[in-house]
C-alpha cells in the first residue's frame, strides 16, 4: 500500500518526502482546495520546486483541487488544473463534476483521482466516476466499514485510497453545510470548516467558552484542556442529555487494522493534516512508514507512538468498525 502524506508548506513537503512518503498531496494557496487556511498551501513556483524535489527521490505529487467551482468564477479552478498539469502533478484530486469534465477534455492524459469530497460511497457511484471521467483512484468517504471496503473493492475497476490517520469528519464529506450555516464559510465553496476567523474563546466565571460565529460550541471548566471548536466535535444539549452529540474530540487511527485494509484491496493509505506543522508531518510519516513494513511484534510500539501524536491523544477507528454507527 502506498503512503499518501499531507503538506501545507514547502518545508512540510520536503519532510514528508524525506520521511518515506510514496506521494505527497498539497494544494494551491486559494479557495480551490479544501484546506484554504491562512499561511498554508503553495504558490505555482513553490509547487514547481516541490515536484522537482519529490521526483528526484521517486516520490509522487498529488494536487488537491477539491472544492466546488463557484458559478461565474470557474476560471480560478480551471487555472489550477491547467497549472497542476503543466507543472507535472502525478495526479489531480477533484470533487466537482464540472471540473472533472473540464480536466478530461483539456488534459486527457492527466491522472484523475476522486476526492473524498465527492462522496463516492458505493460501487455504482465509483462506476459513474470511472465511466464519466476515467477516474483512476477514489478516496473513500469515512462512512464505510473495512468489510464494506473489501466488498466494494471487488466490484470496481478503480484503485481505492482510504484515510488512516488524522482528523476525522463525522459527516459524509462534501455533503456538510454545518460550517456555512453557522459562519457563512463552507467547506465546499470556500475550502474551510469552522474557520479560525469565526472562532472566539470567552472566559465565563471559571469556565472557558469556545464559540463559532454566534454559537457556543463547548465549555471547559478550569483544568480541562480547551479544544478547537470544530462544529461537529462540540458539546450540546439534546433534551435532557448533555454531551458530544456527534463525535467526541478524537482523531482517526486505523493503524491497528493495516493487514485488514491491505487484504480488503486498499491501494493507498492517506494521512490527514495539511494544516499541521512540518515536525508533526515528519514524525507521523516516518512512524507510519515503519509501521507499514514492521512485523507483528514490532508494530504495537509504533502504533502507540502514533496515538501519542493524535489530537488530545484520543483516537477512534471511526466508521471502519460497525459499532461506531
Amino acid at each position: 500500500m502506498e503512503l499518501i502524506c499531507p503538506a501545507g508548506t514547502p518545508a512540510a513537503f520536503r519532510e514528508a518526502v524525506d520521511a518515506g512518503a510514496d506521494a505527497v498531496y498539497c494544494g494551491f494557496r486559494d479557495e480551490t482546495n479544501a484546506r484554504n487556511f491562512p499561511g498554508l498551501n503553495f504558490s505555482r513556483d513553490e509547487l514547481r520546486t516541490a515536484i522537482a524535489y519529490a521526483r528526484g527521490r521517486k516520490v509522487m505529487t498529488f494536487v488537491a483541487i477539491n472544492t466546488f467551482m463557484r458559478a461565474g468564477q470557474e476560471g480560478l479552478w480551471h487555472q489550477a488544473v491547467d497549472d497542476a498539469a503543466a507543472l507535472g502533478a502525478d495526479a489531480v484530486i477533484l470533487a466537482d463534476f464540472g471540473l472533472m469534465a473540464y480536466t478530461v477534455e483539456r488534459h486527457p492524459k492527466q491522472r484523475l483521482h476522486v476526492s473524498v469530497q465527492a462522496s463516492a460511497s458505493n460501487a455504482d457511484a465509483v462506476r459513474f466516476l470511472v465511466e464519466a471521467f476515467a477516474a483512476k483512484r477514489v478516496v473513500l468517504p469515512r462512512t464505510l466499514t473495512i468489510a464494506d471496503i473489501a466488498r466494494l473493492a471487488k466490484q470496481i475497476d478503480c484503485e481505492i485510497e482510504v484515510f488512516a490517520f488524522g482528523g476525522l469528519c463525522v459527516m459524509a464529506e462534501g455533503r456538510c453545510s454545518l460550517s456555512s450555516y453557522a459562519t457563512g464559510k463552507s467547506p465546499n465553496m470556500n475550502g474551510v470548516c469552522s474557520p479560525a476567523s469565526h472562532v472566539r474563546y470567552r472566559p465565563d466565571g471559571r469556565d472557558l467558552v469556545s464559540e463559532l460565529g454566534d454559537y457556543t460550541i463547548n465549555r471547559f471548566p478550569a483544568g480541562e484542556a480547551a479544544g478547537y471548536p470544530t462544529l461537529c466535535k462540540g458539546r450540546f444539549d439534546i433534551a435532557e442529555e448533555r454531551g458530544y452529540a456527534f463525535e467526541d474530540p478524537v482523531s482517526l487511527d486505523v493503524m491497528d487494522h493495516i493487514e485488514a485494509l491491505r487484504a480488503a484491496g486498499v491501494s493507498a493509505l492517506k494521512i490527514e493534516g495539511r494544516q499541521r506543522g512540518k515536525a508533526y508531518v515528519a514524525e507521523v510519516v516516518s512512524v507510519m512508514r515503519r509501521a507499514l513494513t514492521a512485523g507483528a511484534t514490532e508494530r504495537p510500539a509504533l502504533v502507540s507512538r502514533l496515538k501519542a501524536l493524535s489530537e488530545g491523544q484520543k483516537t477512534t477507528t471511526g466508521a471502519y468498525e460497525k459499532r461506531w454507527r
Partner: protein
Amino acid sequence: MTLSTSPSKPVLSLGPVYYLWDGPKWRDFYFRVADEAPIAHVTIGEAVCSKRLHFIEPHVGEVIERLENAGKQVSLASLALVTLERESQLVRGLVRDSAHSIEVNDLSALHLLAGKPHSIGPLVNVYNGATARLLASRGATSICLPPELPMGSVRGIVDENPGVDFEVFAFGRVPLAISARCAHARSKGLIKDNCQFICGEDPDGLTVETLDSQPFLALNGVQTMSHTCQALLQELPELAAAGVSRIRLSPQDCDMAAVAHIFDDVIAGRRSPREAQATLAGIYPNRPFSNGFHHGQTGATWISAEAGAEAR
C-alpha cells in the same frame, strides 16, 4: 423596440418527507396534498435512512394514485447515503422497477440512470453551470440546487443551462449534513444498528441546543438539519425573474397545504411577501425563519427585505 419575454411563473414542488412518520400519517399527509395543495410536482419516498422504508411501503401505491388523480407529477426519491450492499440493491431495484421519474440523491443513482430522464435532488452537489450541463447531458431534466447556494450562483447556473428546469429549496428546515452514524439514536443511548426507530418520536426533528440554551440544529436520524426554517418569500420575484421554474417546499410537521397556498399567492402576486411571512409564522410557529444562504451570508440568519436590497 425589442420585446422582452418575461419568464413564465414558477410552479411549486414538494420534496420528500425527510422525517420518520408512521405509515397512516404519511399517507394522510399526501392525501391532503393531493386534494388541497396547489403543488405541481411531488417527490415521495425515503431519502434519509434505508432502515425506515417499511413504514411507508404499504402506502406508496395508494399515495401515488391519489396524487396522480389530482394531476400532480410524481417522482420517487433515491437514498441520500448508500453504503451497504442492501442499500445498493434498493437503489438498483428502484431504478429498475419504477415507472416514475427518479430524484437522484446519491451518485449511485446517477450511474444507474445514465441516458434516462431523471431529476437531481438538493443533496447532489451542483455548484456551477458546468456540473449542471454534465448532468443534463446524462439525462437530468430538472435540478434542485443545493440549499447553501447563493443567488449569484443560482442565476449563473440557470443562465448557462436554458434547457433544464431548475428548482430552489424555498421552505423547510435545511438538510445540512448526513452521516454513517446516527446522532439521533446516540442522543437516546442507542446505536444505529439497534435504533428502535427512535427518530419516529420526533416528527419535526429533535432540537440540538448549545450549552447556553440557544437552539441551533435538529437531528433527524442520520441527517442533521437546521434549527431554522429556510423561507424564501421576498426572494420569489427575483428567483422567477432569474428563470427558476420550480419552488421547492420541504415537508415539515405542519399544514403544508396552507404553506403551499401562501407561496402560490406570493408567486401569483395575490399576497405581499411581508403579509405572507406573518401568516406563515402562524402556520409553522415557534420556528425562526432564515434566508442567509440565499444572500451569501451565515445560513442561520434572517435578512429582511430592506437589508437584502441594501446588500445588493
